[in-house]
């Protein structure tokens, strides 16, 4: 057991550190204003161009073929530098790699990884959230194309996406989990309308709904076989639930650092409760950081992704919401005197973590039935 760097890891860290010091774009730690995502795209490109993104993905698609522990090093150094987190799109990469044909992988992975082409994930619908398999968007074959009709909602990044990783019902007459297929649907076409949704912290980009009215997608853009959509979706959500995949540790650490700095500047101005909240947030972030190291190390044994991702998702959610609560505590009355108060926005944004990627209740259902075998 060793948390230390191997020589190769140390060499990587030594290369990364000065680059970060020179290139940190100094973005806020969380999605707290409309500029955030625009700048995050530049950050993606900068990381990629410098050779610090897609570390564990195949070189053939623009990655570096390194073990996943290098992502931990990247996250640690991002956190230490107070730099923004790496873009979290590993779950889409995993979904395409696991289920896509070679042609699909060659066509889509390079653009996704380099950030040249931007993606959103069209799973949820107004009447299909936790019960995702109840989705009603249809994909109907028409020659060598599918025609898409339906309504997707809570679609993050749909405002800027070039592609939608879409889940649609292609076989209406089979059991609800069986009739689904996944597609890479081009977003820029007449049959698609994107409508922004304003989030509770006031952000108007990032979040949206997407209406499909006779949109078209080439049949060759299907990811996986017809009817394989549910399995594709499960691959994606199980990866989406892992903090190691998402790289959020850096984001949380950056927020806590900021809070610590605020308190240190004038320690006497903060109550015991406020100081406790910040210290507890630090404890939570440290836990998640070591937890990610442990999970990624376990993967060296070839431990498969499965219901364990739900444990990680819950832990990550508790961390994010503890950090959000600490931000609100430190802000004190500022949070009600100024709606643009950044800690207030961090707090409000943190509430989504127990909903997105499957709610906390759904994660607990999965842990109880599949890990504890209760039911």
């Amino acid at each position: 057991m060793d948390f230390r760097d191997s020589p190769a890891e140390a060499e990587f860290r030594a290369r990364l550190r000065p680059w970060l010091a020179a290139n940190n774009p100094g973005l806020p730690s969380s999605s707290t204003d409309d500029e955030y995502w625009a700048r995050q795209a530049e950050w993606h490109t900068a990381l990629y161009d410098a050779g610090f993104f897609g570390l564990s993905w195949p070189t053939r698609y623009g990655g570096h073929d390194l073990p996943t522990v290098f992502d931990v090093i990247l996250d640690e150094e991002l956190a230490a530098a107070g730099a923004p987190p790496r873009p979290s799109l590993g779950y889409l990469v995993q979904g395409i790699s696991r289920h896509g044909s070679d042609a699909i992988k060659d066509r889509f992975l390079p653009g996704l990884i380099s950030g040249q082409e931007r993606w959103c994930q069209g799973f949820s619908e107004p009447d299909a959230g936790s019960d995702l398999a109840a989705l009603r968007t249809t994909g109907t074959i028409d020659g060598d194309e599918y025609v898409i009709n339906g309504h997707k909602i809570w679609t993050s990044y749909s405002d800027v996406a070039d592609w939608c990783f879409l889940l649609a019902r292609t076989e209406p007459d089979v059991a609800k989990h069986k009739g689904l297929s996944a597609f890479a649907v081009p977003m820029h076409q007449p049959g698609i309308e994107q409508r922004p949704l304003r989030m509770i912290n006031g952000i108007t980009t990032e979040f949206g709904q997407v209406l499909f009215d006779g949109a078209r997608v080439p049949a060759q853009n299907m990811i996986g076989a017809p009817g394989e959509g549910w399995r594709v979706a499960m691959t994606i959500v199980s990866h989406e639930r892992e903090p190691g995949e998402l790289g959020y540790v850096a984001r949380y650490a950056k927020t806590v650092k900021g809070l610590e700095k605020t308190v240190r500047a004038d320690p006497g101005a903060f109550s015991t409760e406020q100081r406790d909240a910040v210290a507890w947030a630090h404890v939570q972030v440290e836990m998640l950081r070591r937890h990610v190291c442990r999970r990624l190390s376990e993967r060296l044994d070839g431990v498969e992704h499965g219901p364990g991702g739900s444990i990680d998702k819950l832990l990550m959610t508790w961390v994010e919401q503890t950090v959000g609560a600490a931000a609100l505590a430190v802000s004190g009355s500022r949070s009600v005197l100024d709606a643009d108060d950044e800690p207030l926005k961090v707090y409000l944004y943190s509430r989504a973590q127990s909903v997105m990627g499957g709610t906390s209740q759904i994660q607990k259902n999965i842990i109880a039935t599949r890990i504890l075998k209760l039911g």
Partner: protein
Amino acid sequence: MDTRDTAEQAELRRAARQLARELGPSTVGALDDATRHARLVAAVRDAGWLELRDDTGDGSPLASGVEAAIVADALGASVADAAYTGPLMAADLLRRAGVERADHAVVAFSGALVDAAVVDGARTAEAIYAIDCSAEQPDSAYAIVAEGAEYRLARLRLADTSNGAAPQTDLTRTVRGIAPGAPVDDVPGQRRLLTTDDLAHWSALGLALTSADLVGVMRGILDVTVAYAAERQQYGVAIGSFQAVQHLLAEAWCLMDGSQSIALYASWAVDTLEPDEARAAGRVAKAYCARAARQVCETAIQVHGGIGNTWECIAHVYLRRALLSSHWFGDDGDQLRGLQHERLGAVDGLS
């Protein structure tokens, strides 16, 4: 980075868990089984685990904090009623002072149970406590004496001092109260004075081992409780089929898993990082594990219903052990204050 057990660590983990499961008290009644207890004590001694922090000869310990924590975790999981962490912590302190260990006397703690007792004078002035005394406890305990900015070891004679028989909260480890007035003797052959760095490293080990014990406690009580939820029927179905019960147990399971990750790191930090960093890692682990263990044990009692509130149910044996492991070397509140001091700056009037 590779946080997996080495082959030897995995084997130690397996062996320690098996031994603790076989000889630990699996029921409350078994706590009174003197034969079982004696076999467990002998097995822990014969396995060599009480020597893990002894000097190899060059000042380094026989085994790292990781191995020591693997055993602590296994003993916690089976609420094993054999002294382990107490004697090990004494051995570690003796090693740092360059003193050869002669017996398994433990270190005495001040009343808050956070720090080793600091004595001054020919006799102790305050009530102090020897924690996790071994069965073959010699009638003495260690304490420390300030000498400038450093410390030397002292040995207390306990024969004629006792706090009477205060009932034990933790039913699996012995806490001996030492009334004021215990004679303080020199420890012969001390080759080095203990520095504040030594004490920081020593607390790092204490924090790592008590955290590991708490992780074990959580895993042990969850095993018992998940099995109970699958078996106990109400309304004609297992109570584990109720979502309210499932969610309590799922949360507890996550807390245990997160605790394991952070406790592992703290145990690795003990012999690898600088004293302050190692202690900070211990503080973080202890703060997390202490809070988590409390919630997990309370969940276990709730899921057991009425029987969970009886002496006969093993749940309170786990909770009681968790309470002692939490306070020993400082509970979550103590650790948060320590972290604040280090990270947020000192504040007048708040320590």
